[in-house]
C-alpha cells in the first residue's frame, strides 16, 4: 500500500512558528530579550572624564559624599562621547536600596585619576563636579546626565 503522507508538510506548526516570529520581529520587547535600564552620562566638555557612581555595596553612598577609601576602577569618557551605566534591575530599585533616595555621581578628570594617588584625590577632594540626583531628578532628565 502506497502512502504519500511523508511528502506532506503539516502547515500548522509552520503557521505557529511564523506567528511567533512575526510577533517577535515587530514588538517592543520580544521574548527572551534581556532588558537593561541605563543611566547615560555624556561628556560635553573638552577633557576626558571618569565618573564614579556611589552605589553603596560597601562603598560610600549619599548622604556621605566623601570618596571611598579604595581606588575604584572607573570608565573613561572622552570629549563628546557617552557611556551607559546598565543595570538589569531598574534604577528605581537600585536607588531605593541606597541609604537615601539619592545617587551621587562624582566626575573626576581622567588625567588626575591616572596620575594622582587615590589618597590624594580623596583627601583633597579632586573632583570636577558632583551630581546628587534623586529618582525624580533622574526621571525628569530622562536618565541622561550631561557633564558639565
Amino acid at each position: 500500500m502506497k502512502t504519500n503522507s511523508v511528502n506532506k508538510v503539516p502547515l500548522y506548526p509552520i503557521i505557529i512558528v511564523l506567528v511567533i516570529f512575526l510577533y517577535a520581529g515587530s514588538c517592543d520587547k520580544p521574548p527572551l530579550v534581556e532588558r537593561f535600564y541605563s543611566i547615560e552620562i555624556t561628556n560635553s566638555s573638552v577633557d576626558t572624564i571618569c565618573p564614579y557612581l556611589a552605589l553603596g555595596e560597601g562603598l560610600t553612598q549619599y548622604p556621605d559624599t566623601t570618596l571611598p577609601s579604595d581606588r575604584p576602577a572607573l570608565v573613561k569618557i572622552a570629549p563628546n562621547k557617552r557611556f551607559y551605566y546598565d543595570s538589569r534591575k531598574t534604577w528605581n530599585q537600585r536607588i531605593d536600596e541606597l541609604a537615601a533616595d539619592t545617587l551621587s555621581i562624582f566626575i573626576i578628570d581622567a588625567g588626575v585619576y591616572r596620575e594622582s594617588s587615590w589618597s590624594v584625590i580623596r583627601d583633597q577632594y579632586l573632583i570636577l563636579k558632583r551630581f546628587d540626583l534623586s529618582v525624580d531628578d533622574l526621571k525628569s532628565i530622562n536618565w541622561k546626565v550631561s557633564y558639565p
Partner: protein
Amino acid sequence: MGGKAVNTLSTITSLCNNSKNAGKILLGKTYTDENNFWHGLTQSITRYTWEGLQTWAGYNFSQFRNTFGGVDRVDYLGGATFVTGENREYRQGVSLGNYPNIWLWDEIEGNFDERVTSDPIFMHEYGHTFDSQWFGPLYLPVIGIPSASGALWTEKRANRYAKRYFEKHYGVDWTPFLTLYPIK
C-alpha cells in the same frame, strides 16, 4: 522543509524592506571568527549542527525584525553578526546562535569595533554566543529563558566569556565594568 519555508519567507520579506541589511544577515551565516582560527572552526561546525536550532531562530528573528523596520545596521565581529536597532526606547539585547540582536538608545558613531569594545552590552551579548556553542539544543531552556528573567548566574557566565575574549583579542580592561557587569 518547514524550516526552509520560514527561512525563505523571512529572507524575502526582509529583502523587500531593506535589502542591504537583509543581505548582510544572510551573509552572516558563513561568517566565522577572524581573531581565533580554532574558535572560527568550531563555530563553522556547531552552527549548523549542535546549535542549529538557535542559529535558525536567530537568523529568522533578525530577518523578520528587519522586515518590520527594527534594524538600522548589521555588523560583523568575532564570527557574530550584530543586528542593531538605533534610537530605540530601551537598551536591550538577545543572542540567538551567532546573531546577537541589540537595541540602543543612541546611534553608533564611527568605528563599530570601537563601539563594541567600549559598550559592555555588545560584549555581554557576544559572551552568550559561547553559551550557545556549549549548550547546543539546551541553550534556550538552560540559558535563554533564565537570562531573560534576570538570572544572575547566566549573566555572570556571559560576562566571563566576554571578559576573556575581549581582553585577549582587543585589550579590553573589564574592571571598570565589574560593578554592573559582574563576573562572580
